[in-house]
């Protein structure tokens, strides 16, 4: 079986690096994009299994990417987990209705990402 893949989309190098380290620890091969447009291009060349997605980014923001990805690739693939400082209920509802599987409010740590990846169906429940 080929290794599972996750695309980390965030305009902050620091956040991408932190997320990469954690998600690699879950056994995923991680690639990075710094905005929604780069992420969309990456998905078109090879669709990852998971996308960890920031909201506020230059060029194309996360919610625009989310809607474009759902229109182009369907409701289930890739599994998309928002990961953003936006913590308002209205924003969470907006992301869910646009087709996000899960939602992480920054700051995050490995435990939160593991739980959210589990709920998004990307990881098995730890026995």
């Amino acid at each position: 079986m080929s290794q599972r893949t996750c695309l980390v989309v965030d305009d902050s190098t620091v956040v991408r690096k932190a997320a990469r380290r954690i998600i690699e620890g879950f056994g995923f091969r991680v690639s990075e994009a710094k905005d929604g447009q780069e992420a969309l291009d990456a998905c078109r060349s090879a669709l990852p299994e998971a996308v960890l997605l920031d909201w506020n980014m230059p060029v194309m923001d996360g919610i625009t990417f989310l809607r474009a990805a759902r229109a182009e690739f369907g409701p289930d693939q890739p599994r998309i987990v928002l990961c953003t400082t936006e913590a308002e209920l209205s924003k969470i509802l907006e992301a869910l209705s646009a087709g996000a599987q899960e939602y992480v409010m920054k700051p995050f740590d490995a435990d939160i990402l593991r739980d959210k990846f589990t709920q998004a169906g990307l990881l098995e429940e730890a026995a």
Partner: protein
Amino acid sequence: MTPDSFNFLAGLVKARSGIVLTADKGYMLETRLGPMLRRESMQGLDALAQRLRAPRAEALAAEVVEALTTNESSFFRDGKPFEHLKKLLPKLAAARPPGQPIRVWSAACSSGQEAYSIAMTAAELGPALGGRKLDILGTDISREMLDRAQEGVFTQFEVQRGLPVTMLVKHFKQEGQRWRVAPELRAQVRWQFFNLMEDPRTLGRFDIIFCRNVLIYFDAPTKSRVLGSLAGMLAPDGVVYLGGAETVLGLTERLVPAPGERGVYEPARATAKAG
């Protein structure tokens, strides 16, 4: 700290909470009791032990025990028990007379995530329960935790542990950086101070008991006694959920593992008497 002081403190904690402090837990006493020592201007744990031996130390003793309880909790912790609960609740709802609520006990409930997870599981089942109500009781020996549980307000960090975001938006109201459990869920849970060292029969009978990651702090005789009590309070078709590292094996014969399940225990069927 002298061995004598350690033994005195460990004895006090064991008598009051069942929690066994082994000699390697000296560091834990230092860190957990440090704030209290500073507040009371005491020189160290020896001074604390001395104070506790004097009369009228009740409030201080209670505080020591409270400081040494472990209050780790998260929503839907370990997942599996709640998967089992989802299947069990409709069966129990069908088996009970009309109007009788399903009674659930969250023993050592800490800040309340387990009890609220039970309430959410029932809410998600909706029509499958045929309108059957749950009567959930959360008990703990920490009054601070009980207050928190009752308030039902959780930090952004806490609501991201174990709780699917769909349940967060459905069952919580946002209050700034924090999230409060919706009134419909809070109405299903009662909170009560209760020490597992006491006779639990005063709490009544239960269909379901969650007693997870509690027994690990007790010695074998205490484990046996608590498990025996739980078995005695359980409906014949009820279950007890224990933590992943806990078992009934060698501790009680009144509970047996549910076939094909982990961490789920049923009352032992009365064996037929030899004729």
